[in-house]
């Protein structure tokens, strides 16, 4: 039955895409959780990751998988730099001031990227074959993106649970005041979390290109910023884990609802999937204001 087959195909793709979305949101949630900063420039950092993968592949033939640690490192360095130059001075400023600063940083990165790399839409072809299923084909690159997302999320999880630093960061997320009184060097944790958050975000840019290896451009991040925000709220905003799971759910909703919406005559089902995501967001907020997977 075509309908069911298509639904399954869409859900499979949705799950893969969802994992990438999830990872692309973890950095946002981490930064918010620790520093209470809304990174409106989020997409610009994803774009840096995407270009990293592109240049490494085109110039040196380096597989995007190997670009992952590189992007993470580059992201963390950028993160520390942004923290020291701007964010550090604004930690105690009103929430809006930091929001505005992140916006300006995002614009700056985008415009600088445009000057350096041009306004072209570029892409790369990493051909490693695909799996043929009866109802669809799944390229291995997308599976690599899927598995890497899960592994990286798991690695971050382990880091948080098992290492001393990770525990300290978690303590700050869960109870800021408490962590302060426990003698944790909050400034250090802030710097670390910010750079880790940016690192994860840049890294997720590489994964994004594994899923969508074309359309890489200085302004490509905006789309991901919007999605990451919605996913972050679904996941409870301050929780990187919640964000990862919510990404999954978001991917499933976005792709899965297409098949159902296709049954309505006279509409554009693909466009409406975006509306459905919004309705789901509103419903979740109505029923559980702390997010689908939020604590409290």
């Amino acid at each position, binding site marked *: 039955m075509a309908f069911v087959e298509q639904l399954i195909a869409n859900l499979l*793709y949705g799950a893969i895409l969802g994992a990438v979305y999830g990872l692309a949101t973890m950095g946002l949630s981490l930064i918010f959780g620790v520093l209470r900063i809304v990174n409106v420039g989020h997409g610009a950092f994803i774009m840096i990751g995407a270009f990293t993968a592109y240049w490494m592949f085109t110039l040196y033939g380096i597989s995007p998988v190997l670009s992952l640690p590189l992007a993470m490192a580059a992201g963390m360095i950028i993160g520390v730099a942004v923290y020291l130059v701007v964010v550090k001075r604004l930690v105690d400023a009103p929430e809006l001031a930091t929001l505005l600063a992140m916006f300006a940083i995002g614009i700056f990165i985008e415009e600088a990227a445009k000057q350096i790399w041009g306004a072209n839409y570029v892409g790369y072809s990493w051909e490693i074959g695909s799996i043929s299923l009866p109802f669809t084909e799944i390229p291995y690159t*997308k599976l690599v993106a899927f598995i890497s997302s899960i592994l990286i999320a798991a690695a971050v999880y382990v880091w948080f649970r098992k290492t001393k630093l990770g525990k300290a960061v978690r303590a700050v997320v869960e109870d800021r005041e408490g962590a302060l009184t426990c003698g944790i060097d909050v400034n250090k944790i802030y710097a670390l979390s910010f750079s880790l958050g940016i690192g994860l975000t840049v890294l997720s840019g590489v994964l994004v290109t594994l899923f969508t290896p*074309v*359309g890489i451009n200085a302004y490509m991040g905006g789309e991901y910023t919007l999605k990451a925000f919605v996913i972050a709220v679904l996941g409870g905003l301050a929780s990187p884990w919640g964000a990862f799971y919510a990404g999954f759910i978001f991917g499933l909703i976005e792709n899965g609802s297409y098949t159902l919406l296709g049954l309505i005559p006279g509409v*554009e089902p693909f466009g409406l999937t*975006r509306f459905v995501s919004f309705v789901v967001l509103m419903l979740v907020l109505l029923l559980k204001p702390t997010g689908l997977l939020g604590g409290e």
Partner: protein
Amino acid sequence: MKKLLVFVLVGMVLFFAGCAQQQPQQATTPAGPKEETLYFGAPISLSGKFAEEGKASLYGMQVAAKWINEHGGVKVGDTTYKIEIKYYDDESKKENVQSLIERLATVDKVKFILAPYSSGLTLAAAPIAEKYQVLLNSHGGASDYIFEQGYYYVVQTLSPASKYQTGFLDMVKKLDPNAKRVALVYEDGEFSRAVHQAAKEYAEELGFEIVYEKTYPAGATDLSPILNELKATNPDVIIGGGHFADGQLLAKQLAELNINVKAISILVAPTFPEFYEALGNKAEGICGPAQWEVGARYTPDVADELGVEWYGPTQDEFLAMYKELAGEDAVPPYQAAEAAAAVLSYAKAIEKAQSLDPAKVREAMNGLKFMCLYGLWQIDPETGKQVGHEMDIIQWQNGEKKIVWPEAAATADPCYPMPTWDEKASGATCGS
């Protein structure tokens, strides 16, 4: 410390304001008998979503202006005018376009404006151009409806949206009368919708059967839901696309999902070299409509044969001059050629009118017909819509963009049916 920062800040602001004031204020006061400078104004998208197209069109304009100046300028009476392009960045935003058009019309006293890129921005510019009664020549606003609003001062140099995909359908019909099943997959935006609505009507006229039609939202990063569905309808040809990113994605995912058809035509994206760079030989055989393409056979000789006047640089001259501006490896996309043609059409019309009065020049445009490297230029006197120019269909063959339609302009035979994705995966190209 704080004071110093404030000081620096104020200083910067003043500096920028000062820079802004240093812009040449006078432009055209035709009095002397000798040489004067004539400014054509242009709001150009150098940042924002149309930055890529904007840059190419700016180079195109500058090349055309340079050629005109090197070839005697524009003569009105006994005055010779050198053309210069006065441009500002509109950031691809409608409010900026309106301000900049006014600035061009009043501060810079520009009478001839090259419209901004895209239909939306051209539409935003139109009321202001009309208010100041300056000409607005559209080289990037394709949508037909712009010219159905009754603006007198707005004319079009590029072919309208309704003509984009029709040539491809003609070609398929000629090559393979048995290919009947057409699938449409395109971006849900006003431009691509206009293109594909016209294409759909035209396809039905030609006797094609529309087996699938769906749109996807701008910015989509995964088209698999649509393409899984499309695959089941088993089409012969696919037409679709919208802009750059989604066009690349469409081709990429057609390949990934192993959807084989005899021919594909995608809007906008395939005309850029990055398309092939991004997709590799998966791009082989993919077609796309182009307003113009390197290798287009518009030459002074062709003009002679048709009995129309030739004006402007030949293609070789154009390519050489474009390289000087844009860099050694730069190959002009069609946005450059259509912008150049718009500049040439102004120059031609001004000479014909022997006046710098926009109303008289607009009058002169009605009867104007000439050929340049971009092709024929002729407008419908009533609406200002371009009727002379014809679209080309390009196809990627063996790593090169070839013109395959119309036959008269073709630089290669169409590669039809295109190789399957599996064939391409094992290295097949068109013409190998």
